[in-house]
């Protein structure tokens, strides 16, 4: 292979910032086939690929990239599917700079191979023009598995166990499946059609998806066993919004990010009044927090007509937990950042609507337990920021609805479900758990990894019994 001439990382075309900040279309437009093949040629096909260590599910990265370079796209997607059932999603939302691409050897001296973009490319190609063929399934085992929650972890379990011959039913509380992929992550970052086509694929495979069933209310975990399920997987996510506990938090116009994003994404309030669910369209918007959820909220506010969209964060830029690409996109679109600022109180008018936030400036003090320098308040630095919409995106906790109604399910001290790290097994016989309800808010790929691990363990249990 005589390819010494240096190819630079292929740039994925994007909608221009000033245009995309006003619509809900996807921001990055995808690589052309030509660019994808070129990008694939940048991979050095390492014997001991560091990138694979960086991928939580161990995708055979050089393997699938080589097949792209050879224009064997169907083979390439099959290679990815061996480890990752939702590549069109992961290619878009994985924090690649911290995972696969962060470890890529090419990245040591320049830009790493665009692994995420390539993954997205083959997955999109398969979805749009692929064969749509369904992989072979093991003969029916006669065993029934209930999966609670249709987020990435639940969907992974459902797909894996169906392929192994078990009969799987997914129960979802919302009226549409997909979990955070549908109600949380906005259309401009992850088009919902992609998620629905992944779910449709699972249904074609033989998975039954039942929406509008809240386990813990409509049916309990124990009743699922009584109904004949042999095993239950709990992947209900971390859906309890945290608030700040400061005065003025119940003013109209102050939302949890969960509510704000659910209205916009799942209920399509951005298309009101064509869709019936309304949303408050703020002119001056403040978002509290700086994770992916906060970026999604601040960018959604812009698209809903905000003149200013500001992110207020207690720590400094170095600690921002969001994906690098999202922070970059947000800044390009005009989101402003107020670092080292802590909210003290929200002010409102006689109609009980929010009109402003009182903030306090912070400075970095001594490192705390996590090694991060702890922000400490600067006395007398209070200032007011005007706003008519405020979105609280400071994290989520475990929703107790299911756990409180399930006997014998041990929780940790923050009320997340305790599950074995290697198998996902809980303290309750026949019950596994994984994803955000075990780890706390994490990532799509970690939730899927947990699902795969649990599926293997459930399969062993159903095959051998113990």
């Amino acid at each position: 292979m005589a390819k010494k001439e240096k190819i630079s990382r292929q740039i994925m075309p994007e909608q221009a910032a000033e245009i995309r900040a006003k619509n809900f279309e996807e921001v990055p437009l995808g690589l052309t086939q030509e660019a994808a093949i070129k990008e694939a040629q940048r991979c050095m096909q390492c014997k001991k690929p560091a990138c694979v260590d960086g991928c939580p599910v161990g995708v055979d990265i050089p393997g699938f990239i080589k097949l792209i370079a050879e224009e064997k796209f169907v083979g390439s997607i099959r290679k990815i599917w061996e480890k990752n059932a939702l590549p069109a999603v992961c290619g878009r939302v994985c924090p690649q700079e911290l995972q696969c691409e962060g470890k890529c050897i090419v990245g040591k001296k320049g830009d790493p191979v665009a692994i995420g973009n390539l993954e997205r490319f083959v997955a999109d190609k398969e979805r749009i023009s692929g064969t749509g063929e369904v992989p072979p399934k093991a003969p029916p085992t006669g065993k029934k598995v209930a999966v609670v929650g249709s987020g990435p972890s639940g969907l992974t379990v459902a797909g894996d166990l169906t392929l192994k011959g078990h009969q799987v039913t997914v129960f979802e509380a919302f009226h549409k499946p997909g979990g955070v992929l549908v109600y949380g992550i906005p259309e401009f970052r992850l088009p919902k059609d992609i998620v629905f086509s992944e779910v449709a694929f699972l249904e074609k495979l033989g998975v039954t998806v039942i929406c509008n069933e809240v386990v813990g209310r409509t049916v309990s975990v124990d009743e699922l066993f009584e109904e004949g399920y042999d095993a239950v997987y709990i992947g209900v996510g971390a859906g309890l919004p945290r608030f700040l506990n400061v005065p003025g938090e119940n003013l109209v116009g102050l939302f949890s990010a969960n509510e704000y994003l659910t209205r916009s994404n799942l209920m399509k309030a951005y298309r009101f009044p064509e869709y019936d669910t309304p949303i408050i369209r703020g002119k001056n918007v403040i978002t509290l927090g700086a994770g992916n959820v906060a970026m999604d909220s601040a960018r959604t506010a812009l698209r809903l007509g905000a003149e200013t969209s500001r992110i207020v964060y207690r720590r400094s830029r170095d600690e921002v937990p969001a994906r690098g690409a999202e922070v970059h996109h947000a800044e390009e679109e005009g989101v402003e950042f107020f670092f080292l600022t802590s909210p003290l109180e929200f002010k409102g008018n006689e109609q009980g609507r929010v009109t402003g936030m009182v903030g306090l400036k912070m400075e970095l003090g001594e490192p705390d337990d996590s090694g991060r320098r702890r922000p400490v308040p600067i006395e007398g630095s209070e200032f007011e920021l005007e706003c008519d919409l405020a979105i609280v995106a400071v994290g989520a906790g475990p929703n107790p609805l299911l756990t409180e109604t399930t006997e014998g399910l041990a929780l940790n001290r923050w009320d997340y479900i305790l599950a074995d790290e290697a198998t996902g097994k809980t303290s309750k016989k026949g019950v596994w758990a994984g994803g955000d309800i075990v780890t706390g808010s994490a990532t799509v790929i970690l939730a899927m990894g947990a699902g795969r691990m649990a599926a293997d363990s459930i399969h062993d249990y159903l095959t051998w019994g113990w």
Partner: protein
Amino acid sequence: MFKIVEREEMTGGTVIRNEIEAPLIARKAMPGQFVILKANETGERIPLTMADTNPEKGTITIIYMVVGKSTALFRELKVGDAFQDIIGPLGAPTHLEKVGKVVCVGGGTGIAVLHPITRALKEIGNDVTCIVGARSKDILILEDEMKNASNDLRICTDDGSYGHHGFVTDVLKEVLEKGDIKLAVAIGPVPMMKFVSKMTKEYNVKTMVSLNPVMVDGTGMCGCCRVSVGGQTKFACVDGPEFDGHEVDYDELMLRLLAYKEDEKRSLEESGLQL
């Protein structure tokens, strides 16, 4: 999926009763619990309390007042039509206990919510006095049902067209004066619940109200339904909808209910539907 098997227009079409096929929900529902309904693909998620359930038949009954776009859309649904989505049963069931003398106060469609609770309170051996109010005689609902569900039914109308001429609180005062009331239950418009609670507090009678804030998911994941109770923030969809009436911040609730006033108007206008 969630087919309407019976439909009745009450009070000349401003209040509608639907009996709907929802066997899984009917099997589990308890008095005080609600469902969330969505009519079609573009619809909003609307919370309504179950006014009745029939586990054998696999149906639930809702009674709702047509107040905006979504309820006007629901009214369009005929027998044989279906709601696209119904989720439930949601919320904590009413805490039912034998305490002796109980007074139940209802107003508007709150009467529909109050009915199964009243019936259950009587069934477990309480002596239940019921006071229901309406603006006028022709919009009073469930009179016979409430009579059967209670030991003594008192009716009030704002315009004096039926029963006592005046507010439910007038009659409530009489009942409380006689003494010995152990528990009050008040369900209806927020101002009514506020004034009932104010009065029962003077008489030191424990009072339960059922709150109706705006909701989205109904499972505790969005915080849209938060209400202040005893100075603490609660999620009405999971911690409630029933709370200690003496502790609720009604003024905050009323303001929060107006959050989408302009949007609701626009939504109704553009839909071409009538109230």
